[in-house]
């Protein structure tokens, strides 16, 4: 029976799924659930879990994971084979999204200011860059402590979403 290691919002789930005579058999962390799923068109479906109704839209995320839209909100989810994930854990390889050594533009826009220089140590929350997009100046802050290895943009430069802006050591 297919078994997956699923990570949502930092929480890990062990999900087994089977499909038998038109019916899903799902167990989450060993707990069996009655699940029905009806397609609503394209990537949307109606999920009934123990009678509980929920409309979901599951789409591919840019990072290879999935993005699940529910109740007007969205969640990033990673799904991998359960056994592979276990092996990886034993081997000490980080599972889930990697902390990126490169910092990419989260949106297209105009770089107003680069506040750091190569070699500079930055702390979590420290401003890295100022990008103007949608008429707003957005201050991009460090997500953790790091050392800047290289800066690839300068003030006044236009960037597209996904462009590498900075590299960390």
């Amino acid at each position, binding site marked *: 029976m*297919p078994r*997956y290691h*699923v990570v949502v*919002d930092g929480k890990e*789930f062990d*999900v*087994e*799924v089977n*499909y038998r*005579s*038109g*019916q*899903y*058999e*799902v*167990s*989450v962390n*060993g*707990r*069996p*659930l*009655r*699940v*029905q*799923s*009806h*397609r*609503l068109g*394209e*990537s*949307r*479906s109606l*999920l*009934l*879990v123990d009678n509980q109704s929920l*409309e*979901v*839209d599951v*789409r591919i995320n840019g990072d290879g994971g*999935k993005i*699940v*839209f*529910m*109740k*007007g*909100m*969205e*969640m990033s*989810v990673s*799904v991998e084979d359960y056994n592979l994930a276990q092996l990886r854990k034993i081997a000490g390889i980080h599972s889930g999204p990697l902390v990126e050594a490169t910092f990419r533009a989260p*949106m297209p*826009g105009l770089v107003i200011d680069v506040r750091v220089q190569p070699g500079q140590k930055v702390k979590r929350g420290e401003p890295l860059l100022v990008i103007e*997009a*949608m*008429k*707003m100046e*957005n*201050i*991009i802050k460090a997500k953790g402590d790091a050392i800047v290895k290289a800066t690839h943009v300068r003030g006044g430069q236009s960037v597209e*979403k996904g462009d590498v802006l900075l590299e960390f050591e």
Partner: protein
Amino acid sequence: MSHKINKILIANRGEIAVRVMRACRDLGITSVGVYSECDKTAYHVRMSDEAVYIGNSPSTESYLVQDNIIRAAKETQADAIHPGYGFLAENPEFAQRCLDEGLIFIGPSPETIRLLGDKLQARALALKAGLSVIPGTDLDGRDSKAALQLVRDIGFPILVKAAAGGGGKGMRVVESEALFAEALASASSEAASSFGDGRVFVERYLKRPRHIEIQTLRDQHGNCVYLGERECSIQRRHQKVIEETPSPVVSPELRKRMGEAAVNIVRMSGYVGAGTVEFLVEKDGSFYFLEVNTRLQVEHPITEMVSGLDLVKEQISIAEGKKLTIRQEDVALRGHAIECRIYAEDPSEGFVPSTGRLKNYRPPSGPGVRVDSGVVIFSEIPIYYDPIIAKLVVWGQDRPEAISRARRALEEFRLSGVKTTIGFHRVIMDNKKFLDGDLSTRFLEEEFPDNNYQLFSDDLVERAAIAAALDTFVKERKITLGNGRRSRSTGSSWTTFHRRNNLRSFGGSR
């Protein structure tokens, strides 16, 4: 003198253009939309009776190009221009240009816009009208030493503000002397680049004030009313996020005093049309004049919900030279209304704009719910403009009912493709301080430092895990799922129900 308007060009885009077009429809007035390259199939173009292309996507090449707007109005023989908010709405040159071209500008006169748009002049006028202002001073032409001395007299923390403009641009809070020089320079340069006017002034920074504003209407004949207040304290980066009316702290007596103060300055400025007088209000009920916004506000619908008036229709009626049909004693405010601004932004990433295509879009409905959208399903959210995509407006008999409807409506939204502030609003609707009405302009930073909030319930997180696992399973196995129409293969719950015990044991061995 009364002049019937037959056709209005709406010099804007998105939800506010759609909003104005709806008022035009109600009045039997033909609406003309304008659109840039990337807005060719935008919702406001689809909603307009006529639509004219006005240039490339950047607003500096389209929505801000006065020549193109005027030309579109001439081509379509519009007799009036509604500027919406933003873009050219508070530009006195544009208002003047309209008049020169024989077009009615739906808003106050260029002189009034100019006077009130200059914060220093507006401040002087407010003092003359008997309003309290926050202690502060002009820094024009002073050297940095003299400026610092003036600022010391006011006392830190202080707020540096651009004399022109608004919306948080060119605004800096300065906590101490050491940071003053840099803040002054950056505020001034931002003001210069944003408004072409680098003048700044400083004020005492109030620690935890509320932002409360009064909606006014004044006709060409001098009749003026105020339509209650709007509490707009919930802001980030000086941008309003949630507004409500009435304010949880405004008593009828305070409403009357603030309303009359607002009417005073509106009268003295010669204001014609719908205007908003903004105040900062302290715990003890003392209120300080902030500024007059010489346009329709984003948050005008909450006033419409409680007053029953259509403010855009009132604007048009005033622009036609008609007299107000409502007197102050007729103003009856009923119930409570709340607006949640839905931005295409990622709250978990510090509200960075999120662009892309709406793969699904189904706004909520039902009792007490109004959604003013600028988008529809498959709309593209372009990078060039304000990230507001919709405004959720709810009404209830009282504040608790309005909040419960906001919760319901937020959960009812179906939207895929871009990140939005919907979930963020949902969190606020459960915040204890919000529920207590204990608000200030620092609400968000105090309650959610580091944008730290729990968006998802444990149940919802588990559902997401199941949905993603099922999706992987189906794609791997290429199972064809019924679409609910023809498939009878997914079984009924009755059969499922009876199979429950089997299911229990199947996973129970782990």
